[in-house]
């Protein structure tokens, strides 16, 4: 891989041992990808503060410097971690102190994360603590090269914002934050951003659930490539594209899609394919829609629902408002809990707007920072959960060994209030 003189100097320690280790990792990673060179980034979204047993052991052994060196730089040397070289934010992580007594979650994790926030905050890491940095002020501009983790954020940044990022991992994002570099590979290159699959939608797609199901279908069709969506689709909003992308990144590994007339790099279907001939369309009709719904609901057999989870990816203020409106004046069924996950910065807005109060009076909870899948935590004794998120319906049964139901926000609130799943495909 070609290195500039600056990059060679950095590798050799001109910017200190930590930046040297970071450059060493980027070189090993770039060569693993067969990248031609690195590119400059000044927008990194990674993970440093999330507690884990491995991290706790490293912190005991050598403090936070050691934990960052091993986990975020793949380096075994004892090095001191300086301030981040480029703007860096922390994505979603574990639960914070406000979840104590609500979420069955180890107190030592809350304490470890508080230490981590203090360590990384002093090194210039913005603790956004959300899987949706683009909802709380980190909105890359079109064409901006980024180094982001979190598959649902990566697909949003590439597709909806027209920014350029691969799906980075803990170590590559860590190395990017100390160097301002990332392999110039994959989505960073103009020639790799064209559509590869055409999905022709023949059933009306409108609303959060429908966009999530279409995303889950698109990921199954396109795998790691780039679906182009045309046909009977209503103009989507932020929340719908957020859900579509999260689902496509879950069922496949989609990091970039185009919706002609909606997403910025595809004013037309021809532009989506960048002048290449469009492949034969794959139809998404009533039968395909039914199959996706059945797949997402194939992990539920018991109608009794213990737990309702909303806000995956983290909810927008408007989603919080809708949940509050649906719950207003109602009470959750005894024995059923409802958690709504939001970015902490937006919880402040929800609090001021009175939405949190409405949800809490019904017995529900509005929680920041994390999610049950990240933190492997659900209400004690949960056997069956319901969600409006295709991503959580996919992952949580594996992670927690529980049954899942998938439906609309209204189906989920109904389950929370009655304790029973009565959702169905409209």
């Amino acid at each position: 891989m070609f290195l500039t003189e600056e990059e060679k100097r950095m590798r050799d320690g001109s910017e200190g041992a930590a930046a040297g280790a970071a450059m060493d990792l980027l070189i090993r990673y770039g060569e693993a990808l067969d990248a031609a060179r690195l590119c400059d980034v000044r927008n990194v979204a990674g993970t440093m503060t999330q507690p884990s047993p491995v991290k706790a052991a490293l912190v005991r052994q050598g403090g936070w410097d050691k934990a960052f060196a091993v986990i975020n730089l793949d380096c075994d040397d004892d090095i001191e971690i300086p301030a981040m070289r480029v703007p860096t934010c922390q994505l979603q992580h574990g639960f914070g102190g406000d979840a104590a007594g609500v979420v069955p979650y180890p107190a030592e994790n809350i304490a470890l994360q508080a230490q981590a926030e203090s360590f990384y905050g002093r090194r210039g890491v913005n603790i956004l603590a959300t899987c949706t940095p683009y909802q709380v002020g980190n909105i890359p501009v079109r064409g901006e090269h980024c180094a982001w983790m979190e598959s649902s954020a990566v697909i949003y940044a590439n597709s909806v914002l027209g920014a350029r990022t691969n799906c980075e991992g803990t170590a590559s994002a860590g190395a990017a934050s100390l160097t301002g570099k990332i392999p110039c590979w994959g989505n960073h290159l103009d020639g790799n951003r064209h559509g590869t699959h055409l999905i022709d939608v023949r059933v009306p797609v409108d609303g959060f659930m429908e966009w999530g199901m279409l995303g889950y279908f698109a990921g199954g069709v396109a795998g790691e490539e780039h679906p182009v969506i045309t046909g009977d689709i209503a103009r989507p909003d932020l929340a719908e594209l957020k859900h579509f992308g999260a689902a496509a990144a879950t069922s496949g590994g989609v990091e970039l899609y185009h919706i002609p007339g909606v997403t910025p790099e595809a004013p037309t279907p021809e532009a989506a394919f960048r002048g290449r001939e469009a492949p034969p369309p794959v139809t998404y009709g009533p039968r395909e829609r039914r199959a996706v719904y059945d797949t997402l609901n194939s992990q539920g057999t018991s109608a009794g629902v213990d737990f309702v989870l909303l806000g995956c990816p983290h909810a927008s203020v408007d989603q919080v408002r809708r949940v509050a409106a649906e719950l207003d004046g109602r009470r959750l069924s005894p024995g059923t809990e409802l958690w709504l996950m939001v970015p902490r910065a937006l919880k402040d807005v929800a609090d001021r707007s009175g939405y949190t109060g409405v949800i809490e009076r019904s017995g529900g909870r509005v929680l920041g920072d994390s999610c049950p899948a990240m933190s492997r935590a659900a209400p004690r004794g949960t056997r069956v959960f319901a969600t409006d998120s295709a991503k959580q319906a996919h992952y949580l049964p594996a992670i927690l060994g529980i049954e899942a139901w998938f439906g609309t926000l209204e189906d989920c609130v109904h389950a929370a209030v009655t304790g029973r799943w009565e959702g169905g495909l409209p």
Partner: protein
Amino acid sequence: MIKTTIVLRGRVVVPGACEGEALVSHEPISGWGGIDPARGVIIEPRHELNGACFTGKVLVFPSAKGSSGWSGFFQSARLLGTAPIGMIIARISTKSALGAVVTRVPAVTDLDADPCEAIATGDRVRIDNGTVEVRRP
């Protein structure tokens, strides 16, 4: 006993050599939410290898899918002593490239035949940089 030997050639992802038993997946593998690093086991419910242990094996798979936690979960497997000893990856991506780097095991991709078809679970596999030697007992 007659042994068949085939040789595949590809591109080095992580340099090095290793030899061991192959564990072959025909479906992409998830890291986060797909493996348990504490036990070195695949845990995705509808996956063909659900319940299979990759510790000490050469993991052969078409591609990495799912969360960006992929590399971090395989790194945890290394730190907990449950990692595979090598990786043969049909189609590379950032997840699997970084995953192989931080698992610190020999890894190879872009082979001259589809490794998920050419290699079967239980085959004896030797990775030597870009060369993969497969012996079927």
